[in-house]
């Protein structure tokens, strides 16, 4: 069916059809057997054009052959339809009109011949337009394909950059915590430790008491500092599994059962982002397209993978093709080396599996 839609097929068919018309004219006409050689030569040229892309100047051969035979047989004039068609197919309309002039010069009443050449001209022009359109469509498709590949490449690069930024942020945070502990807590604790060591060797009770008070002050200050540091470090926004739980709790369109298992700390920050996006997309789809009353969300973390499963009991049939949101998630999951699959056999099932790095989130 695809081949039948190719304009080039019709161009070839028309050529052979014209040779068939010439054969018909010869069989039912009164022409000499010698004229058969003209038809064979035109057929050979048509075959060559079918197999190879002959240059345009080769139509001169067709014209010469037809003109040589024209004084002896009208098939010579009918044969001009082939060069007219070839010229029209290449868009050389003005040159294609020239054989018409030959026709009027040598034939007093062209009549049917004129119409025959005219149809060749129009079919040729139509084929030229069709081939031109096909060519431009192919170029457009190539351009779009290139743009799509470029977009996918940029997306992958962004994902990699996101992963890298996540790791950098983690390292920076570790450094900040270490500095905080060193600057505020470490200083007082070291002082207190040294004071306690000195206290052991103290002879004077008064000095020992002052030293002990100093130690007490330092330890109290350390406790306050530790509390403040921990308070400052605690994130305000929900992250990780809490974020997923929060999304599930906020959902009001259906009852949600959320189960989780495994060590959630093994999952990296950038993976949580994707898992959260998966959950949000699935719940949005439930709210917009499904008649589900219950949704089951399972988050399982093992030593090597994290698996998020969202399953609803909806019965509405959804479009078979994944939407752009799901396609994007699928691509992101693949970019992370995981998989993202959908099933509509029994309700709507969405499973996202991501591999965990050996180092884990830490």
């Amino acid at each position: 069916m695809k081949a039948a839609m190719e304009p080039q097929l019709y161009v070839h068919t028309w050529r052979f059809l014209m040779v068939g018309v010439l054969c018909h004219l010869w069989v039912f006409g009164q022409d000499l057997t010698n004229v058969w050689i003209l038809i064979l030569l035109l057929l050979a040229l048509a075959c060559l054009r079918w197999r190879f892309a002959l240059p345009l100047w080769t139509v001169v051969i067709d014209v010469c052959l037809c003109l040589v035979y024209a004084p002896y047989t009208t098939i010579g004039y009918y044969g001009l339809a082939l060069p007219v068609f070839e010229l029209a197919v290449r868009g050389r309309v003005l040159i294609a009109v020239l054989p018409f002039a030959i026709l009027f010069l040598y034939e007093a009443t062209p009549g049917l011949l004129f119409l025959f050449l005219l149809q060749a001209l129009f079919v040729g022009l139509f084929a030229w337009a069709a081939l031109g359109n096909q060519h431009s469509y192919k170029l457009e498709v190539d351009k779009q394909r290139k743009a799509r590949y470029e977009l996918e490449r940029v997306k992958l690069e962004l994902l990699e950059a996101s992963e890298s930024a996540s790791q950098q942020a983690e390292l920076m945070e570790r450094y900040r915590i270490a500095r905080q502990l060193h600057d505020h807590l470490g200083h007082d604790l070291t002082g207190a430790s040294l004071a306690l060591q000195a206290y052991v060797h103290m002879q004077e009770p008064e000095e020992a008491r002052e030293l002990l008070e100093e130690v007490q002050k330092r330890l109290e200050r350390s406790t306050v500092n530790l509390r403040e540091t921990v308070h400052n470090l605690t994130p305000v926004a929900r992250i990780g599994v809490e974020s997923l739980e929060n999304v599930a709790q906020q959902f009001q369109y259906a009852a949600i059962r959320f189960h989780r298992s495994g060590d959630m700390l093994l999952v990296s920050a950038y993976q949580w982002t994707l898992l959260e996006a998966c959950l949000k997309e699935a719940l949005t789809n439930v709210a917009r397209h499904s008649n589900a009353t219950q949704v089951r969300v399972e988050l399982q973390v093992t030593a090597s993978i994290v698996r998020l499963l969202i399953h609803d009991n909806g019965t509405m049939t959804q479009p078979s093709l994944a939407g752009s949101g799901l396609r994007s998630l699928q691509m992101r999951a693949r970019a992370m080396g995981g998989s993202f699959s959908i099933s509509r056999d029994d309700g709507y099932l969405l499973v996202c599996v991501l591999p965990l790095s050996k180092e884990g989130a830490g």
Partner: protein
Amino acid sequence: MTVFRFVFLRSFRNTTNLIFLTLFPLVCIFMPQGDPWPVLPYGYQLFGVFLLFVSIRLASYIQVDRMSGVVKRLSIAPLSHASYLSQHLLAYLLIIMLQCVILVYGGVLYGQPLIQPFLLLILYISYSLAALAIALAWITLFRNKELAFFGFMSFVFLVSVLGGIIVPVSMFPEWLARIAVLFPTYWLAEGQLWIVYGNELGDFLFVNVVLWLYALVFMIIGSTRKLR
């Protein structure tokens, strides 16, 4: 010329093939003369039909190569399709030419009235080329070797009857006689008539040119790896 040598040997490797390719021309030599038709002995008339069968038999090796994936594998070898095809056709043409030589000069030795044996040989060679090209184009239309062969048998019967090899064209009604000209077998019969009665060499050349044109047309069609 590795392919040429291989094809040449491959054609004679099979004993049935060997007998088929050598025995039939010998049988044709000893066939009697008809009166008043055909103008040459029966064997020389039927040899035209036989050449079509030989052509399909030889060309079927190319079909086997196409179907078994040899042609596909060759496409990644340092051998062009044109070279593969031309060496095949050259080998086949050489085999058929040998048969023509055996038939014509065997007939001369036996004493058959061939009038102009050398020109008859040229006519047979031109016709062989056309027959080979037709067979090549024919196998391009089919995927199955047996189907192609049996289809070609029907085709051979048709062109033999309508082309004036089995029945003289002069017996046909006028419109059928015009259609007969379309078949290459007509030009073989026409060439044989010239050899017996002809005077002007131009007419004989014309017959040969027509046969070469048939060969060219069908060879272009047959040169495709497969019809799309």
